[in-house]
């Protein structure tokens, strides 16, 4: 868990886990990914943001599951057994990302990452670090630090 | 056979430092926490050399050295005093008690090893 490849360093070959939400492809640095699991039911959290599905039990650890589609503004996911949870470790915390399907593990060169288009919405700008073009598919690189659930400033 | 050293000090930091320094130098190290403990462990440890602190609870270094010397089989066992004290009076007391040498803390590992090598065959 301690080793976290940081994507920030330039000119480096890294492995990414690519996955899909709806029609779009996304990816995470494999250094953050602990494991991939099928959908399991979660416990609803009170007063949680809409993108927090709930808490799951991962071998005794309690961790939040994020509906990545909702987080990215792509609509709410109604979870069912075909869905996948990517367990990631980011900023000392473990979290599950609910996605449609995991596609592949690919080696890329960090230099090949292109910036997101200028027309970006604030959400795109905040959560997408850039894009890789892989066999004519645009794969969006998630900014793992930004995507983590933020504590509301006012608790009430 | 590896040279065995019994180090007696009430400070666990000091014990650890001595142990680290001497183990790295290839010695076999046993540890004791004060004079009584040192005398207790003497038989089982059967060291080739003893290193002891002076200020210790229950039985201080002087008392322990006397206790060691009182044992016939340890009559000529080298005993090094390792202490922060450097007073001539105390040195003389240690000498009278039967100490072999006197080293002032903080010690330098290399020198300590060199001195030990000079005292054990």
């Amino acid at each position, binding site marked *: 868990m301690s080793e976290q490849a940081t994507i920030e360093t330039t000119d480096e070959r890294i492995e990414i886990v690519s996955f899909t939400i709806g029609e779009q492809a996304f990816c995470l640095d494999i250094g953050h990914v602990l494991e991939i699991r099928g959908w399991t039911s979660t416990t609803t959290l009170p007063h949680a943001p809409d993108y927090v599905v709930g808490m799951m039990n991962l071998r005794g650890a309690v961790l939040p599951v994020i509906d990545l589609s909702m987080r990215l503004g792509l609509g709410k996911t109604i979870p069912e057994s075909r869905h996948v949870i990517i367990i990631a470790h980011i900023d000392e915390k473990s979290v599950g990302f609910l996605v449609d399907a995991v596609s592949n593990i690919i080696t890329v060169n960090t230099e090949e990452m292109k910036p997101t288009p200028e027309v970006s919405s604030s959400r795109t700008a905040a959560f997408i670090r850039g894009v890789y073009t892989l066999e004519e598919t645009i794969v969006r690189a998630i900014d793992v630090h930004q995507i983590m659930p933020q504590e509301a400033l006012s608790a009430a | 056979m590896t040279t065995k050293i019994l180090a007696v000090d009430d400070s666990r930091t000091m014990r650890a*430092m001595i142990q680290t320094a001497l183990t790295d130098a290839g010695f076999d190290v046993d540890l004791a926490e004060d004079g009584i403990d040192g005398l207790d462990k003497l038989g089982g440890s059967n060291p080739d050399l003893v290193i002891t602190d002076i200020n210790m609870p229950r039985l201080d270094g002087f008392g322990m050295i006397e206790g060691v010397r009182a044992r016939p089989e340890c009559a000529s066992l080298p005993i090094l005093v390792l202490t922060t004290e450097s007073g001539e009076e105390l040195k003389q007391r240690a000498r009278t008690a039967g100490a072999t040498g006197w080293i002032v803390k*903080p010690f330098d590992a290399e020198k300590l090893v060199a001195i030990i090598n000079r005292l054990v065959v």
Partner: protein
Amino acid sequence: MSDLRDMFFEECDDLLEVLSTGLDDLQNGNSDAETINAMFRSVHSIKGGAGAFGLDRLIKFAHAFENVLDDLRSNKIDVDPNITALMFSGFDHLSDLVDAAREDNDLPDSEGASVLSDLKLVTQNANGGVAEEEDASEVSSDDFVALTLDVGLDLDLGGDGPGDLPGLPSLEPVSEGASHFIVKFAADPVLYARGHDPALLFRALGEMGEMTVEADISGVATLESLQEAPAAISWTLTLRPDDGIDESTIREIFEFVEGQCTLEIMEVAAEAAPVVEATPVVEAEAPVKPAAKPAKPSAKAEAPEKDSKQEAKGGDGGKKSSEPRNSTIRVDLNRVDRLINLVGELVISEAMLRQSMNELPVSANSAVSEAIGQLKTLSGVLQESVMAIRAQPVRGLFQRMSRIVRESSRQAGKTSRLVMVGEATEVDKTVTERLVEPLTHMIRNSVDHGLEKAEDRIAAGKPEMGTIKLEAAHRSGRVVISLSDDGAGVNREKVRRKAEEKGLVRPEDDLTDSDIDNLLFRPGFSTADEISQLSGRGVGMDVVRSEIQALGGRINLQSEPGKGTTITISLPLTLAVMEGMLIEVAGESLVVPTVALRETLQPGQANIHDFCDGDRGLSVNDSMLPIVDLGEALGFRSSLEDLSNQSLLLIEGESGRRSALAVDGIVEQREVVIKGLEQNYHSIPGIAAATILGNGKIALIVDTDQMIPSPGNGNPGLRKGSELVEVNSYV
């Protein structure tokens, strides 16, 4: 080296504790010679370790402190209140220096300077007023900083390796024409008795230049008699020294055998080197090792046991010698936590197994159910035992507080003393660590606001010196820590006025004395007219309360005008397990901590009364409690029209206030393993933590205090917090 450094600072904590205990004994007149010895050794060990890490300032201060303790133990000075006070200050500064060194910080030069000079002055006066102390201390500290070896042994041994036997000196004749030394040496029997070995002395000498050795064995009759008459041999060594070697360097080699041998050193001028035919080395060596070493065939066999002994560390090095010594080991806290977690998992797995067994269609096989029953018992005992590892006495924590009392009293210009009761009470280590800040703040508050000024105390017929009492005890499965002062008590009129000014309560609110006292825990409340240096640091008692709550604890304040104030903190024994009531709300399973639970009941509609905005109250024994619809409060669903099918849980909070939680159903009471939410998420309003149920599902643990409305309390767990406050006028 950093491990050793960590170990040193850990040891410093223990040593400071010994010192602090000693100071307390000294102050209370319970000291004896061993008390002062133990204190001396503590400071001495800190100095020794500090020397190893080059912590100059710590060395200097510990040295001055140690000198005073040395004067005390040699009765050069007597214990009096001034000395005790000085040593308390010394202790405080020593702790600061240790802390600063630990954090690699440097304290401002001015800090502790007066204590240091006072300590030096004491030693100076004790030793006949000779101002030698100033110099002596400087010199000594330099000694510690510099690598210092006794000159008698401090030789440059060059590349002498361990395997190098005392290969005595080259037998080649010393070259003619150079100046050289002739050393005549004959050992007294006592020399051997002190562990010296002439051969090794010669080897050291041999490293100073070219050397030849001649042994005169004329006095030796037989080899067997060597041991009895070792002095019968005398040696003549001829050394042609390397550069920089002079007579004094040579003498240094023999310093420690001085008085145990006959030694003659002559410097011979350039010509006529008396080259002597060397006697075979074997013979020279022969007397050197009398048969002093028994064979040690058992050494290897004992090794494992010895290893384990080496691990055993006595953290009680400073205790009185009469006390039995408990053998202890030091273990990384992470390992313990891992073990605790694993055992927690084991308990959960055991529960899951039991549940699946119950669901089996076949009638319970008695052998299996018996085994499972045993497993349940064992895992319970195992869990308890593992939890006990984390427990440690609150003594260290309390001792830190005694310093806070001293400091705040000094700053507030009041005299006060701290009385500690039940320091041996054991509490989870994390709890003691996290209690430091809240307790510090509470004590500052007590000294600052609780204790009256000296003249007021005298006028009230109280002793001028105020008493602060810190007490710990185990009570019905919880740890209770109370802090009381014999001050003026809470000025309720003033508190109430202040609360009204700040809009926390309304003038027409009917508040009990206890209600008013506990207003002090409200966010932003401060009674001090002027913000004092002590407690007015922008932190109020509300922060203290939230810290205690974060530990799963409750805090309560009781005050009696003119007599004093007592703040009671009640904490769970361990942070990892608690007793809870499993309930269901809106399809979710939740746990309500049993500590807050007073009663469960099925209401008749007649007992439920409607108020404005959908608020409802429950009439119980002539009083009206607010009903909190848990499903609504947690945002799981909207408010239920009809509560008659609901179960009600009567809960009571820290302040003694109650409310009735409406839930869909009560399942069972059970012990749950607490899983923090902050580790992977963050805190959630209305929820204290989570747990994992037998079926592997997560259940959230309700934060009951946040489910009890109170005047002006913006309980974040309550969706309708502000409106529910209205209900209080009926309580």
